């Protein structure tokens, strides 16, 4: 079982990204959960969302305490919320930042853990013209964790989730943002 914790601000779409991830995994025949930590979901307020993905049925119904992966959607949260809480040396960080993984490691003063970075804000602004970093971060996450879900499943789910609600143009922009982050994410 892989456990993931998302850090974002309300309005950045992290809850949706977390749902798409779970949905894509279930689409692939896996077992998955997506559980937002509701309560502070007002636009701009820091929020968390959780995922569990497994080959076996999941019975846990509680917050993720020891995430295998931490996804930081908003770089301004790096120092304001305890993003490393509950992680061990083997944890993986996927962070939206213009820094390289090495720069970020130094900036955070982190030892151990694998760090991946992607400039999701830039991708979002270029492709979506809005600071919606959720989809790019999902793209990066999919790349980083190979066995989680395939990029194709996520694309399918994005089409199913957004398909009828947004224009084709915006849908394509989302898919492009997903794909760019998938390709542009860098590890140490």
């Amino acid at each position, binding site marked *: 079982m892989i456990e993931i914790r998302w850090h974002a601000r309300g309005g950045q779409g992290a809850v949706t990204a977390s749902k798409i991830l779970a949905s894509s995994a279930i689409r692939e025949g896996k077992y998955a959960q997506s559980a937002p930590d*509701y309560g502070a979901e007002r636009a701009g307020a820091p929020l968390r969302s959780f995922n569990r993905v497994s080959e076996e049925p999941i*019975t846990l119904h*509680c917050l993720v305490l020891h995430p295998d992966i931490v996804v930081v959607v908003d770089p301004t949260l790096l120092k304001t919320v305890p993003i490393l809480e509950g992680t061990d040396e083997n944890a993986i960080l996927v962070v939206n930042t213009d820094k390289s993984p090495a720069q970020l490691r130094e900036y955070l003063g982190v030892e151990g853990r694998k760090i991946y970075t992607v400039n999701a804000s830039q991708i979002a602004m270029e492709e979506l013209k809005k600071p919606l970093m959720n989809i790019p971060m999902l793209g990066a996450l999919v790349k980083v964790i190979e066995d989680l879900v395939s990029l194709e499943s996520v694309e399918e789910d994005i089409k199913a989730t957004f398909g009828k609600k947004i224009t084709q143009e915006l849908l394509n922009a989302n898919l492009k943002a997903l794909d760019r982050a998938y390709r542009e994410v860098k590890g140490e």
Partner: protein
Amino acid sequence: MAVTIIKERKMVPYSGNMAAAEALRQINPDVVAAYPITPQTEIMHFFADFVANGLVDTELMTVESEHSALSAAVGAAAAGARAMTATAGPGLALMWEILGVASGMRLPIVIAVVNRALSAPINIHGDHSDMMGARDQGCIMLFSENAEEEYDNMIQAIKIAEDERVRLPVMVGMDGFIISHSIENVSLLTDDEVREFIGTQKMMNSLLDVDNPVTHGAIAMSDSYMEFKRQQREAMMNAYKVIREVGEEFAALRGRKYEHIETYKTEDAEYILVVMGSTAGTAKYVADRLREKGEKVGIIKVRTFRPFPYYDIADAIEASNARAIGIMDRAETFGGYSGPLFEEVCTALYTRGKIYPVTGIIYGLGGRDCNINHIEEAFDVVKKKAAGIEVPPVTYLNLKA
């Protein structure tokens, strides 16, 4: 969620609310009356989409309060319609008066309850205070562990409620946000399967039968009131059998049996936790981990709270090697010994003539997380109790000291 009909069974990523709404769509009730309250609102959003897109024949009444929602459901059910509503926490509290009316009039209304804490302080998150507060209003109460159970329980609820031996309202509870708003795997039945399973309602004493006019809701003086209450007791006792029968029938369709309780590794268990709702899943996970370390622990999940399965619980505990039992309540009974579940489990044991060391555990109020560590802590309390080490009568889990 997709507005579509289900022709083939499939696994879907659904939240508890989506699962409840899908069940509602497949049931295709005649009348649904509801009022928005967090975290139930989504059920009605999804269902309203079905109505707007012509996927159900339902008259959806968007009423001005929960009190009116259940009142309208009473009117509709007395008219012979399949009537349903959905609510949460304070909304259920506002319905309270009419819960007793619905059960007293023996109307088979199904109520989806997204379990939420009661004010004050105001809190929108999951606990069982709402249904526990309404536990003596004569409604059958089922608790769901996850989204799929919510879906399955909603479908079974119709059949249980409408059984002529029962004719009582059924509440189907799921933990607010933890289940209602979390996406999980849900295996859906086809529309045809659900409709065939529930069948068409048999109308009894319909208000619309003007050729055979009936009076519903008469005043019963002290010369007959008690007899009607005794009938309700009988109906609840019948419900105990009917819930089991419907669960068996459902198993034939679904491949998974639903019983009043679910025992998890209790056969040789020395330490047992009794729990309801979503935390049962977490508790099972912890039981597995502790078993790996050689600890003989087990879980009893209570699915049916009303009628309460006294025999099942006493049987399960008697069949185990229990040295002590922890009973976990996600609700308070202020001034009582512990929570409502505690009282019932103790009654089950006492009436069986079995005395075990028992300890009350209160957890998860207002959505407070109950994770692996807390379940382990609960087991620690149970172990202490078994060892004769003094523990407080009630332990509050995950409480800031």
